[in-house]
């Protein structure tokens, strides 16, 4: 069995948004749509304040609410844990976007361009009509992950088969790998550090872990 998960080390993340930008490149998301982004969060009251940068996106839950509400079965969990959307089946009803506790889903009904009037060559090149009026979200760069089966490479270790956000991370804050493999990079990180998952109490069993020093 395989379950791919993401691990974000909040002690290392600096909120630079390089992962956000790299994701936009890798997945050609339209303006305003970010499958990966980093939140800038503040807690406490002056002068006892803490500011934290928190990468978010689809949590690839093992029990995802988006799947439960999907009337067309477009949203499915793959055997490797990746929550995917079949754009051919999706009817763009938006139930999943409402159901997702992580606000990870986006639906775009009309083509939006970076500079408003005129499409740039890269926008034309990568425009995909099939992604209009359907739900979109982070898919852990599943095309890369699938390539690993052909090449024998290891997702999370070999850049060619690793999500773009992880590859781009300047601080080595983002990690990706197979949680079911006891020797994997992510299992090592989870074993050695204190971690939490977002909204764990909702019972969605997210596949996105955060490393954090509870004492800080």
């Amino acid at each position, binding site marked *: 069995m395989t379950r791919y998960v993401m691990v974000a080390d909040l*002690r*290392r993340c*600096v*909120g*630079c*948004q*390089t992962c*956000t*930008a*790299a994701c*936009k*490149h*890798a997945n*050609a998301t339209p*303006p*305003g749509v*970010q499958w990966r*982004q*980093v*939140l*800038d969060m*503040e807690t*406490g*009251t*002056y*002068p006892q*304040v*803490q*500011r*934290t*940068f928190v990468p978010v996106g689809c949590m690839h839950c093992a029990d995802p609410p988006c799947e439960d509400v999907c009337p067309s079965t477009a949203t499915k969990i793959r055997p490797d844990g990746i929550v995917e959307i079949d754009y051919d089946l999706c009817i763009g009803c938006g139930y999943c976007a409402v159901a997702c506790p992580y606000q990870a889903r986006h639906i775009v009904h009309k083509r939006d361009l*970076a*500079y408003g*009037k*005129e499409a*740039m*060559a*890269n*926008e*034309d*090149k*990568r425009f995909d009509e099939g992604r209009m009026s359907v739900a979109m979200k982070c898919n852990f760069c599943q095309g890369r992950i699938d390539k690993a089966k052909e090449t024998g490479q290891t997702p999370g270790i070999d*850049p060619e088969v690793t999500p*773009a956000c992880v*590859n*781009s*991370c*300047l*601080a*080595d*804050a983002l990690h990706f790998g197979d949680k079911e493999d006891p020797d994997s990079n992510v299992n090592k990180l989870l074993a050695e550090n204190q971690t939490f998952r977002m909204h764990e109490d909702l019972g969605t069993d997210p596949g996105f872990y955060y490393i954090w020093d509870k004492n800080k």
Partner: protein
Amino acid sequence: MSTSKKIAQYCYQCVAGPDFLTVKVEDGVMTEVEPNFALADVHPGAGRACVKAYGLVQKTYNPNRLLTPMKRTNPKKGRDEDPGFVAISWDEALGLVGEKMREIRAKGLRDEHGYARVAASFGGGGTPTYYMGTFPAFLGAWGPIDFSFGSGQGVKCTHSEHLYGELWHRGFTVAADTPTSNYILSFGGNPEASHGVMGISRHADARDRGAKRVQIEPHMSVTAACSSEWVPIRPKTDPAFMYGLMHVMLHEMPRERLDLPFLTDHTGSPYLIAPNGYFMRDPVTHKPMLWDTKRGAAVTFDTPDIAPALEGSFTVSGLEVGADDEEWQHEDIQVETAFSHLVKQMEQYTPEWAEDICQVPDGCIRRIADEFVSHAQVGDTIEIDGEILPLRPVSVILGKTVNNGWGGYECCWGRTLLACLVGALEVPGGTLGTTVRLNRPATTRQASVAPGPDGFMKYPMNPTDKDNWQETPKARNGHDTLVPLSASSPWSQALGPTHFAWMFRKESPENWPEVSAPDLWFVYRTNPAISFWDTKAVTERIAEFPYIVSFAYIRDETNHMADILLPECTDFESTQLIRVGGTKFSESYWDHEGVALRQPAIEPLGETRDFTDIATALAEQAGILDRYNNAINKGAGGIPLKGDHWDFTLDTDTKHEAEVIWDAMCRSASAELTDGEETDGLDWYKENGMRTRPISRLIWYLFPEMKKQKLRFEMPYQEQLYRVGKQLGNRLHEKGIEWWNEQLKEYEPLPPWKDFPGIWEQATVNSGGDLKDYPFWLLTSRSMQLAWGSNSSIQMIDEVAKNMHGHRAMIMNAGRAAEMGIEEGDLVEIKSTLRATKGRVALKQGIRPDTILIQGQFDHWVTPYSKDNPAPSMNTVVPMSLALTDATGSSADIVRVAVTKLAGAA
């Protein structure tokens, strides 16, 4: 059939570069930027590129790009004048510029005032050099050029650090030895936003291994967020905090906790100070003296086999040499060491005293002093490449507004001195310089070290003696006349008081020559019309320039006044080979050195041209093609084309294509890096991206070179600066110049605390304001996403930047805002005594209640996209003034303002 390939590139949009990347090209269209992991083993940033590099695809395809040369049709210039740009051919554009250049050469390269008729301004801390191909060869071939019209430096750069850093430890900029440091005191330093890929990864690794960083600044920056502790200090009071630390170290701790051998043997601490404030010198050799405890006598500093006294009072005879060679012969007088003077000076600066000024509890200052010294591991050593060096894993770094403007001298001095007290200057784990720009040669910091007469490093101070002082400035900002520390390297003009070139254009101060407009001004990758202080005034001065040639990517506020726009190929469309490795700005510390290539990933869009081809055409038009080619042969393009065993020099009478020039450059670089064994050309680099060779990490540290040359760090006592200041005062007063008198007071041998916030408060009062009406300190802070490179006009970069709370807004303390009835998103006016700017409010807890913060410089009114996304800009409201200029010619991004909620605004 569809094609897909990945092309190796570098990004050098900011001084923290270069970053490495590949850009994917699918069917001739660039689609995706990715890290270049093939270079991960040699690049300290593991082959990754910062967020800004991901904007370069949009930059290339930006529909607002200028794709053909343009000429102005409206002779009137000004913000409200439509330039009436019309498209023209390259032949016409180059012909028009050529005509102007030939006219200037016929008249003479300097005007009737002695100023160069051609001026040029480039932005980004020298980074445009990495994009302008062989244009430096054109500039070199031309002759005198005035680089002194600033585009933000002085007020936007770490200005005092540049000058004092180079004086004391060859540190044009200064950094922590982060991979080894365990305790970093950061006074407004912002490595997480400013030090790029290399800085971010180094500091993340340091945090991982438990290093502690204390961030001392009025607002909680990205760096404070990633630090162990945030100390919200009152703005511009950082020297008081440092002096409080030094009081604790010098008056409350046992002396043995300091690095006494380092102070005694590697600094000027034991030098004896005579009654008039100058060193006590040997009457015959004029060398400074110290007290030798072995002999029980004063001896010159370079006497063999001595044991100098670090502190104490001694009866000594000797010669004291003051300004303009004034001499005093002393017989059997009581003198003390420089260190003893320091100890006395610091006695008054208790933590309790500092608390009143900084609004930081005295206990916090005492604790930090103790932590700093405890982490210094005084006495420990480490082996680096076979050499045993001191290990002092504590460092101090400074940020903008701390290390520039009034108080910058005191902060740089305090920073360097804190390091010296525990022996943590230029040793592993300590505080390090990065590179040199004023001292020469600039190949390495070590190469620039040469002995001076007093046992310190020689520094190329602009002369202040009667015979050699530059009475009439050669550059319009007067750096050679007013700022001895700015030296006379190719960078010096840009490191003087660059705002004076603008200010004095309008009205020269008393007994100062008229400052003429240049006959021709070249502008590239800079936008002073929005990036300086008092941008309205700068814009008005630009509009007075008779002929402006802008190498332009898009229309902007500065080229709004241009006569000719020349569209150059952008980052991914042109060719350039640059040197990489060694040690450079920010935190670029490499274990390799070599060269890297930027290359066309696609055919240039429209009529845009490779900058090298533009430079060659301009050289031909100016009639200096042979000199231009000769300059390229000598290395003005980055690599000399001839070495001991190779010769790829170009024929000097031929107009060479860019590819031919860069092929020769590539071949010569290959030969240089392999001692002549390889001569791979451009095609090899297009495939491989870069070539490097390993170097010793010892070059990160200056201490071994200082030890080798038996030199001391010029700390703590600034006898040289004291003399230079007196002499400069004499010269200026002889000329009837009294308006630099406040600046002359900065030349203190041991700088005392001054009321630095009071200088800005007084400026508010002097300009007609009542302080109670301007209760806030307005500051700025680096946006990693938007800084440099016109990134606010790149939609994708602007989009991701907005994920950071407060971008394109005014950040304010939430509690203070509640008291004023201001809520998140409210539209407010931010007003100084100069003028006002408007913006939306972002509320935070992580900012002092008396402080507000605006990130970036966004008052665009021409730049496409940016002008339609309004944001407040502090540049609009910060006055440009002599009173706010310190002795190094810099000021700081700080001003007192009022904040008013605009009625009726949603």
